[in-house]
Each structure stands twice: as structure tokens, then as C-alpha cells.
């Protein structure tokens, strides 16, 4: 990876206000996920294992993350790539010896790192809200960590797709429209059979949910279909790498 390209992309993230956007979204997601923890009706359930307070909180996080993450990723990818479309950045980078594919890989690295960090902070803050509210039931650390890890991975894959789309189509409407419809798909995939969720990358926000409905109607731990998820996610990473190589070989910019 070209260090100069990464350093330049880091500077562009400042211009695109990536960190403030993510920080505000993380706070919003945490607030929305944990809003009902502090309600009077929930207070009695915080020390009752049968009320599953941690599971309820994690499920709220799953729903809110599925609703917001696709749009946030689309916004970040779109802003980071639009700089090149608006300011002849592809040509400028090419003159400096950086192909469009290299630029896209650097963007993926920088945005991916920031996004992953944001997911980790967000997940920790949601758990922190539970502790702050006074949940006394044992914390399901393994389930929480697995969900956080898979959420970060799905975010990365969707980021790769949106970076490719934003590079190919200079009209940001397309990327954000796809992000919006993707968010819609992600939310409704939570209510659909697993194969529907696995069919499109945005549905994976639902497919990674570690919770489902148990036989008694309560929440039960489920194992996401990692056997399908991992190859699928790996394939998108390979396709992104191939697309970047093609960008580098193209005579003009990627769009």
C-alpha cells in the first residue's frame, strides 16, 4: 500500500469531516439503542435474568445498526470519492503516479479503519449504557464480541461496494439511493427467513444477529450462518481488489 496515498486520504477525511460525522452517528445510535433502558417499566427487569435485559439491549443495537449503518457507509464512501470527481482528483493522482485503483484501496484502508474503530466504540458504549443503567445480570461478553466483530466485517464489505459504486458513477444520487434501499432491506431482513437476509450484502446486517425468537417466544441465542457469511464476504473483498486493478489499467478515470 502506498504510504503517500494513505496519508493524503487521511487529510481528505478531515476535509470530508469523517470523524465528526461518525462521532455524531455513534452517539445517536447508542442513545437510540439504549433509550428504553432508562424507562420506568424497564427498571424492574434490569436484575431479572428471565427478562433478558442484555439480550434486549443487544437486539435494539442490532435493529438500530441495521437501520443506520448502510446509509452512514454510503455517505462516507460517497463523500470520500466525490472529492476526486469534483476536483479532477483522478487525473491529478495519475500524474503523481497513483492509479485510481490505488486511490480506492487507500480510501478503503482509511475509511475501513475509522469505521471499524467507530463500531468498536459504539458497541462498547451500548454495553456501558447497560452497566450505567444498572443491569445486574451476567454480561454475555462472547455474544457481544462476536456481533461487534461481524458488524465491523459487514460494514467493511458494504464500504467496498459503495467505494466501487461511487468511483464508477459520479452522480452521488446513485450511491446514496442504493444505501437507502440497502438500509430498508437490512431492516426488513430482520423479519424475513435467513436466506432472504443472506441474498444481498445489506441483508447481512440482519444475518449476523446473534439473537432470534426461542420456542417460548422469548429471545434465544442463535448462530449466524458463518459458513455462508465468510465466503460471501471474502468474495466481495476479492472482487474489490480485482475492480481496483481494472481501475488502474483503465486509460481514463473509473467513472
Amino acid at each position, binding site marked *: 500500500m502506498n504510504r503517500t496515498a494513505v496519508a493524503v486520504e487521511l487529510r481528505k477525511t478531515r476535509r470530508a469531516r469523517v470523524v465528526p460525522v461518525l462521532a455524531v452517528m455513534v452517539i445517536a445510535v447508542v442513545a437510540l439503542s439504549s433509550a428504553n433502558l432508562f424507562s420506568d417499566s424497564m427498571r424492574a427487569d434490569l436484575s431479572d435474568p428471565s427478562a433478558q435485559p442484555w439480550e434486549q439491549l443487544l437486539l435494539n443495537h442490532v435493529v438500530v445498526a441495521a437501520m443506520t449503518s448502510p446509509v452512514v457507509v454510503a455517505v462516507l464512501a460517497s*463523500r470520500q470519492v*466525490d472529492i476526486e470527481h469534483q476536483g479532477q482528483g483522478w487525473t491529478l493522482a495519475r500524474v503523481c503516479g497513483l492509479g485510481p485503483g490505488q486511490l480506492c484501496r487507500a480510501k478503503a484502508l482509511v475509511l475501513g479503519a475509522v469505521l471499524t474503530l467507530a463500531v468498536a466504540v459504539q458497541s462498547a458504549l451500548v454495553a456501558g449504557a447497560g452497566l450505567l443503567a444498572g443491569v445486574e445480570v451476567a454480561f454475555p461478553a462472547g455474544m457481544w464480541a462476536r456481533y461487534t466483530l461481524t458488524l465491523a466485517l459487514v460494514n467493511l464489505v458494504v464500504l467496498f461496494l459503495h467505494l466501487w459504486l461511487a468511483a464508477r458513477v459520479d452522480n452521488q444520487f446513485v450511491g446514496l439511493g442504493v444505501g437507502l434501499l440497502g438500509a430498508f432491506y437490512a431492516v426488513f431482513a430482520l423479519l424475513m427467513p435467513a436466506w432472504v437476509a443472506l441474498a444481498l450484502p445489506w441483508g447481512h446486517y440482519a444475518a449476523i444477529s446473534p439473537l432470534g425468537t426461542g420456542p417460548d417466544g422469548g429471545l434465544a441465542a442463535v448462530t449466524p450462518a458463518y459458513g455462508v457469511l465468510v465466503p460471501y464476504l471474502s468474495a466481495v473483498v476479492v472482487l474489490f481488489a480485482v475492480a481496483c486493478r481494472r481501475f488502474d489499467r483503465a486509460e481514463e478515470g473509473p467513472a
Partner: protein
Amino acid sequence: MILAELVKLRRSALWLVALVLPVLTVTAGALNYAGNRSMLSSGWAPFWSQVVLFYGLLFLSMGVAVLASAAWRMEHRGHNWNLLMSTPIRPAAIVGAKIAALALVVAFMQLVLLVLVAVVGRLVLGLEGMPPWEQAAVAGLAVVAATPVIAVQSLLSMSIRSFAAPVALGLLGCVAGAGVLLGGGGGVLSHLVPQALVSSALFLGNTAVADSASLDPGAVGTIVAAAGALTAAVWALSAVLLARREMR
């Protein structure tokens, strides 16, 4: 002016979102209703409640955010600002025409939603009769309630050259609106946050949302009054900004 704005939007891909969003909404609502028939009571009301659940909470307002960015995008391109501002048209009329054109697009979305609910409910889910008039009233009221969101997103998209930034701010508004409603902080606050107003309107008489108000003249009147006041305030602010600031 409004006609001119609609002509500008004629070849825009914005109509695709205006069509696909209601189609997805009704499809997902129908699948959810069909999959949970044992738990839901039968009829048009539970079906409608499933259809508008997430649409009211997030996706209608987010759709408006994307549509507003798309509508203002063309003015940020090339020398369109110079052309637009050198016409003998008042800034209030320019902004008003944009808001009205976007409101017509939202009305189109709601019409598609209603027609699809009727067709899918009758032919696919086998519901009896036709959807009750209350659902048409709620769909129509949602257009009025969405006008402040249109005005706010229009103001943001007019002021910010970036396409994505107003959409990100719109998402934040949706989260704030959902927080206001789910946190039980209804009342005045739910009528001041534009996105919460859209949710309040679409959730009138909703059987799937706890504490949703019923469709009565009082609730409708409050929503219409709040929507009118918010839209007028944001429209006036937009006109002042357009008159005093140089847009690029």
C-alpha cells in the same frame, strides 16, 4: 415556477427512488403480515400498520432527504446558480417552487403506496373489501407532515454543495425523531422535530405502535398546524439565506 421545477426533474433518477421505496415498503409489509398471520389479527388495519412501521419511522424522511439533494444537485452544477439568480424571480419563489415540486413527488410516492396496499391486500393477501378511508387520510396527511422535512432538507441541500452531507444530517434528524417518539417524549417536541412529525402522522391509528394517537380531528389539526408553521419558518429562512448569501 413549479412546472419548471417538475420539468427539471423529468429525466432525473429521483423518480426511481420515489417508485421503488413504496414498492419495497408494501412488499416487505405484506411478507411480514403473511409470515405473522397467526400472531396478528386479520384485516386492513394490521396490514397497513406493518407496511408503515419502518417507513414512517425512517424511510419516508430519508427518502425525502435523498430526493431533496437530487433536486438541488443540478443547481450546484456548472453555472446554474448564476443563471438562476440572474432571473427576475424572488428567492422565496425559487425555494417555494422547489419545496412544492418535492411535495408533489412525495404525494406521488404516497399515491403509489396506497394503490399498492389496495392491490396487494386484495389480490395477494385476500383481504376483504377495500382499504378503509382512514388509510387514505393518513397517507394524505403524511404528505402535509412531510413538508417541513422537505423544507429543512431543501434548505440544507441548497446551502451545502455536497450531495451526501444533507442526507447524513437527515439521518441524524430521523434518529432524533425516533428517539423523541420511542423515548415517550411526545407532545410539543414530537411536533417540533420534522421527522418525528412525519412518524406521528403515519402512525395515527397504528395497531403496531404503542401509544400511537387515533385519527381524530384534534390530532390531525395539531399535525397540520405544526407542519404549516414549521414549513413557513424554514421557507422564510431559506429565502433570506438565498437572498443574502452567495451560493456555489
